[in-house]
């Protein structure tokens, strides 16, 4: 009955190995993506909806926009402040956010999502390559 020291040693080794990823990476959390705004987007100050909403829900917003434009022919979005925007990914969103690589891709890459918006909608209307 003198296996205690083996058991405890084993447990300690197990705990060390099991928690290794946590303490190894302690304090090294990878920073969130830093997005750059174009001059036009900076000047506008706020997007069609508050930034926090846009950050979390822009895909739902785009879904509603598409449905409204394609199915019902309603093309103008009126936000809570009463400001009006034509609902168009190509012509409204990507007009301000003309920097796909520094804006869209930053978060999408960080979150490891690959939306296929740009298979059809033309990116960077303003950027000359």
């Amino acid at each position, binding site marked *: 009955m003198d296996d205690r020291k083996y058991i405890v040693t084993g447990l300690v080794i197990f705990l060390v190995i099991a928690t290794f990823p946590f303490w190894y990476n302690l304090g090294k959390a990878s920073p969130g993506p830093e997005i750059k705004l174009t001059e036009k987007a900076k000047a506008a100050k706020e997007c069609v*909806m508050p930034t926090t909403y846009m950050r979390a829900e822009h895909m739902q917003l785009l879904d*509603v926009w*598409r449905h*409204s434009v*394609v*199915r*019902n*022919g*309603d*093309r*103008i*979005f*009126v*936000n*809570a*402040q*009463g400001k009006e925007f*034509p*609902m168009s*990914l*190509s*012509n409204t969103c990507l007009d301000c956010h003309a920097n796909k690589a520094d804006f869209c891709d930053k978060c999408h890459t960080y979150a490891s999502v690959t939306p*296929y918006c740009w*298979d*059809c*909608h*033309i990116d960077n*209307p303003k950027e000359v390559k």
Partner: protein
Amino acid sequence: MMETSRRRFLQMAGIAVVGFTATPVLDAFAAEHGGHEAVPSVKPGPDGLKAKQWAMVIDTRKIKSAKDLEPMIEACHKIHNVPTFTDKHHEIKWIWHEEYKHAFPSDVAKFMDERLEHVPFPVLCNHCENPPCVRACPTKATFKRPSDGIVMMDFHRCIGCRFCMAACPYGARSFNFRDPRPFIKETNKEFPTRMKGVVEKCNFCSELLAIGKQPACVEASNGILTFGDLYDSESEVRKLLKENFTIRRKQNLGTEPSVYYIV
């Protein structure tokens, strides 16, 4: 002592009941009479053209040769980013031309008027009032828009099954067998392109109608095409239909095409 405490209990209970039930009622009242926050909404554009059913009348008497049709085909294909494939099997077309015998196969006489026999007929999606493609679509990617009768496509929803192409008796739909992007000469950045695996066709320029403009082909047609509301008896198309004999493609199929030809 016992009695007062019971009375007191009932009083308190009564007040509590009033309190609990009144709050939601008052809240609802307050919400109804101002005090509510503005919520985002959508609406149609101010200059958008409206119709019950958009229709087109094509005056084929004004067409001399295929040259007369080139500008409209080019205008359409340019603004909608329609690719040009050299391989006929991959061809994408929104508006093109066809000989009479192909456009109107059931109305060919043994001996035909020479002009009709040779003149190129511009053909496009007929935006049928009873569209078979819409019935065939399993995902409702193509649908008849109730607001203006346009047979629209939601490219996002198209799964590329091509049932609509089989269903359309006019061959008005094309399938993207390849990525069309490299084959677009000049991209119009205001209109999306398509991706491999979706079907596309004429949309009666719904994006232009929404901002108060006529379809691109009509603008470029030099008077050959006329566009308007089929159910407005004062519209340009109705005036032409009143004064001229017109035919429609494969009328006997019952699809009720909205494109009329003056022959």
